């Protein structure tokens, strides 16, 4: 956190000054470790074993927050009797299909309730292999449909309030983690047992009624084939300890880009629409009604998904969207599987994708298996790149690594490339959504120079031109383009009158939504399913309440409460801590005065506190939903988790995930060790792509695995930003970290003959890169079960262009994905390292090919295990 989010880290330092214990668990000893009370080393890719060990510690020491767990989590829910755990099946849950490598998740559900599983209709489809695969992929993207809200549920699950039933979630959890002992943690993670136990002690003594503990993770946690389960595992632990919805608690994702949260809320993502409404699938939802029925819950705020969806369609297609035409629901394109960025790039290589827009991204060095990315770029008809500087993605055709090796020739690359300079943040109005869901408006300071334009300008005018060219079209496919509401007011500045800049404020107002009278709405509860309201993103409804740009509010922090509700605007409805109803006990009183936040004021008849209650403001704690109640009306007054289908925090996920209802430790795709916990080595449901340009290393014990004996993990440093597009061109940052380097221990240096400040080459089956060697005592080998494991730290900021140049770490990585969200594993893989610089030109190709041959990878790709 000190490395990648230094200014956020000020709050950790402040907490430390006020007595907090700061524990840093990381494969590397970083600047965060230096300031923490303890650094706990861990083998990259073993976090679930560590977190599972903590869960086991909590449960075996009865250290959970019992009242919270009983009242606010699904601990009492009873599971179906056909559910089988990894303890029963040596690492598999029930429902695994060996053929397709995916799960039928029905047996994971509660007894007595049907949680609408994303793969719920699997059995209704035909039996062709194609459809099975299709359904599997549908399953994978379906999991994200529950993005902000959990999966829908019908009926009332059976419960045991005493938590004694052998099939209640609490008992299942106990059994599932019973072998995650400190000794097992030592064996899997390489963390000494006494150090692990100190972490456990600190955590449990600092949690409960009087105290709360917070988890912060940088999004490296998501960069694993079990990435979603990493986060789930922390959620289970925090829910057990009563650390969710309370001040000083929570799990904080430290996201790495100015508006990466915003780009998920208002998604430039294939599988969702604004506000986490799923994109419709071709074979599931034939019309709006069935689409909504399949994905909205009976209970909780997702019960109003029809209102959110209709309001969105009305924002996009305006008066063309009517009840008679299903509000233009058929204008939405349909999904048929995984259309994520990795699949897209493989489709580029395979000639399906012809045109590509790359907007403020640099996949030629910034995405795993960079060569695969460049192979895709080289096989396009046209490519549009918009950026501040001349990044590698724009220049791959002239100086990419494959040009040097002779694998590509410039004059044989047919891609037409448009490079359009972009405006900087100081040259445009707009909002970023930060990592705590806070929308903050930035004002334009100056006009962009030359041809530089905002992306708002680009898309508005591109759309305008396309619409003009298709205005007379009678083709059915052009109807949505012609129906599009695309009439944003533009403004021209006196200094650059030729720039016809669309009003970002007008766009934000459209996102906020308007009522029947055309006035800005103030809350999403005003949204209707009858077409009378418009809203571009229901969770952002209220950001323009009262016709005021709430995101531009800048009341100084010193002039308001510590929650600072009048600085910017947080979704939803300016709530700063989610699920904050859980900061009070079931009766609505603060759990403790020390941790008081939101409580029920019986006299006033409402929830009060320094934050906006994340609960219906006047719903009393003793509210019991009447029979047949729907949506939020079906949430009881003592059920804080209002977006969940059962109003509770999930210790166990009966639906919504495709790779297991409970986090279980699996080894990374490429690992130097066998899974010490289960017979199954890696996530059985992970997504692999067995293609010539994407070979995987043999796993431990298979022939050739010793060719890549070391673990490597990629990382960021403070001085650079992501793939370098905003830092490698800046002299004041470049001089601070001037060269690509490799962080290794003195022991590994001795083993491989690597010299401090000398060059070394890191090799995988994908490629070989070079870097300067930084031998440091901060890097320490781990001892696991009698074996010494060396880990190499590789920063991923470099590439061939810019002021400071170097090989890109992403060249080394293969693509193997978490099946829930299709995010790749970059934080744990295997490699070899040798002294000296890497071969140049065609010799690089033969060098890597030789490694592949020695690892037995020329013969065939590794089987799933």
């Amino acid at each position, binding site marked *: 956190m000190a490395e990648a989010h230094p200014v956020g880290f000020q709050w950790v330092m402040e907490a430390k000054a006020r007595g907090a214990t700061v524990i840093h668990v990381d494969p590397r000893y970083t600047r965060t470790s230096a300031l923490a009370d303890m650094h706990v080393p861990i083998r990259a890719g073993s976090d679930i074993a560590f977190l599972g060990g903590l869960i086991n510690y909590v449960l075996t020491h009865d250290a959970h927050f019992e009242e919270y767990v009983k009242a606010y989590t699904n601990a009492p829910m009873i599971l179906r009797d056909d559910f089988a755990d990894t303890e029963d099946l040596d690492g598999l849950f029930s429902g695994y299909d060996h053929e397709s490598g995916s799960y039928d998740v029905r047996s994971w559900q509660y007894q007595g309730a049907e949680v609408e599983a994303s793969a719920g209709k699997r059995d209704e489809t035909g039996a062709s292999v194609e459809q099975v695969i299709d359904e599997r992929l549908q399953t994978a993207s379906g999991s994200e449909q529950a993005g902000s809200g959990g999966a829908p549920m019908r009926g009332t699950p059976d419960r045991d309030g005493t938590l004694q039933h052998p099939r209640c979630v609490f008992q299942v959890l106990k059994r599932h983690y019973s072998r995650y002992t400190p000794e097992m943690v030592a064996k899997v993670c390489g963390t000494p047992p006494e150090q692990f136990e100190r972490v456990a002690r600190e955590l449990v003594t600092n949690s409960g009624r009087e105290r709360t503990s917070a988890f912060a993770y940088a999004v490296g946690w998501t960069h694993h084939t079990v990435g979603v389960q990493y986060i789930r595992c922390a959620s289970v632990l925090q829910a057990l300890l009563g650390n969710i919805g309370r001040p000083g608690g929570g799990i904080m994702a430290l996201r790495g880009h100015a508006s990466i949260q915003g780009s998920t809320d208002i998604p430039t993502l294939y599988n969702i629409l604004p506000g986490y409404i799923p994109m419709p699938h071709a074979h599931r939802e034939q019309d709006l009604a069935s689409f909504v029925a399949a994905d909205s819950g009976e209970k909780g705020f997702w019960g109003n998904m029809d209102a959110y969806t209709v309001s969105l369609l009305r924002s996009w297609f305006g008066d063309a969207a009517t009840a008679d035409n299903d509000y233009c629901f058929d204008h939405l394109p349909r999904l048929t599987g995984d259309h994520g960025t990795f699949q897209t790039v493989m489709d580029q290589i395979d000639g399906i994708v012809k045109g590509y827009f790359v907007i403020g991204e640099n996949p030629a060095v910034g995405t795993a298996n960079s060569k695969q990315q460049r192979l895709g770029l080289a096989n396009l008809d046209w490519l549009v790149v918009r950026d501040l500087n001349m990044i590698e993605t724009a220049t791959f055709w002239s100086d990419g690594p494959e040009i040097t090796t002779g694998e590509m020739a410039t004059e044989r690359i047919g891609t037409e490339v448009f490079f359009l300079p972009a405006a*900087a943040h100081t040259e445009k109005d707009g909002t970023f959504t930060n990592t705590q869901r806070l929308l903050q408006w930035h004002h334009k300071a100056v006009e962009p120079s030359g041809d530089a334009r905002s992306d708002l300008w680009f898309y508005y005018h591109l759309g305008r031109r396309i619409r003009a060219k298709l205005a007379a079209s009678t083709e059915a*496919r052009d109807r949505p383009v012609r129906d599009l509401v695309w009439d944003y007011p533009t403004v021209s500045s006196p200094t650059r009158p030729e720039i016809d800049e669309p009003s970002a404020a007008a766009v934000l107002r459209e996102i906020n939504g308007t009522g029947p009278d055309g006035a800005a709405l103030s809350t999403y509860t005003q949204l209707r399913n009858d077409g009378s309201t418009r809203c571009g993103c229901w969770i952002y409804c209220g950001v323009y309440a009262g016709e005021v740009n709430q995101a531009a509010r800048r009341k100084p922090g010193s002039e308001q409460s510590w929650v600072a509700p009048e600085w910017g605007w947080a979704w939803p409805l300016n709530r700063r801590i989610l699920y904050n109803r859980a900061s009070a006990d079931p009766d609505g009183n603060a759990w403790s005065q020390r941790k008081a936040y939101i409580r029920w004021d019986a006299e006033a008849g409402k929830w009060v506190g320094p934050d906006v209650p994340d609960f219906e403001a006047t719903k009393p704690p003793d509210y019991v939903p009447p029979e047949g109640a729907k949506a939020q009306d079906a949430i009881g007054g003592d059920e804080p988790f209002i977006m969940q289908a059962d109003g509770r925090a999930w210790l166990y996920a009966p639906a919504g995930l495709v790779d297991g209802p409970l986090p279980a430790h699996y080894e990374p795709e490429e690992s130097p060790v066998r899974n010490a916990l289960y017979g199954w080595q890696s996530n059985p449901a992970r997504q692999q792509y067995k293609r010539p340009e994407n070979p995987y290393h043999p796993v431990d014990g298979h022939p050739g695995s010793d060719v890549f004996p070391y673990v490597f993990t990629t990382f960021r440093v403070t001085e650079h930003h992501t793939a370098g597009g905003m830092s490698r061109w800046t002299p004041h940052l470049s001089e601070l970290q001037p060269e690509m380097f490799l962080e290794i221990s003195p022991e590994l240096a001795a083993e491989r003959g690597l010299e401090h400040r000398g060059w070394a080459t890191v090799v995988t089956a994908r490629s070989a890169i070079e870097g300067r060697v930084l031998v440091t005592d901060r890097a320490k080998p781990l001892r696991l079960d009698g074996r010494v494991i060396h880990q190499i730290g590789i920063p991923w900021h470099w590439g061939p262009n810019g002021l400071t140049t170097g090989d890109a770490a992403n060249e080394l990585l293969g693509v193997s994905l978490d099946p829930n969200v299709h995010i790749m594993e970059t934080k744990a893989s295997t490699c070899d390292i040798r002294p000296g610089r890497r071969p140049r030109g065609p010799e690089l190709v033969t060098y890597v090919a030789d490694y592949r041959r020695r690892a037995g990878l020329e013969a065939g790709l590794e089987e799933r295990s």
Partner: protein
Amino acid sequence: MVGDEGRDEGVGVRSWIARWPVYRQLTGDDGLGRGAAARSPRTEALQARTETADREVKSICPFCAVGCAQRVFVKDEQVTQIEGDPDSPVSRGRLCPRGSSSLSLVTSPTREQKIRYRRPYGTEWGDLDLDTAMDMIADRVIETRANSWQHTDELGRHLHRTMGIASLGGATLDNEENYLMKKLYTALGAVQVENQARI
């Protein structure tokens, strides 16, 4: 360098001499000429450029997702300084090295100013004017879309999409920009719209 002061036209000899360091050193309290007596006019005139800026504009750091507040100072329509905004309850005026480098980022001479265009199989960059480039891109979209349109799949299910056009990017863009992107792409039937959140 002391002689520079002599060029100050319209100043009487007495006052000119009074501002001469050695004179001040000999007559004032700064006998060793180490402070008050040795100050150059430039030192006297020093002023923070934040104070002499034409305006201060409130902004947010474009790097990571902490969302630190920035004050952007503008003089003669150029950004002259970017620093933290102490009003922010998020950042309390502080910036990390990346945020502190924002001035260099936005005023960098390495920033491309012009459209660059590479023809298919071309070996060099060429030029295009913005209007032409926009028109060409619009034509490419329309053509690729028409050639790759999928109305239904083989089972007759409604697809209404193109798999020929894809997009990557958004995590450093504004919400308003992402909104227009998703809205336009969806209307065009492009589904392969992705950003850094997947990466």
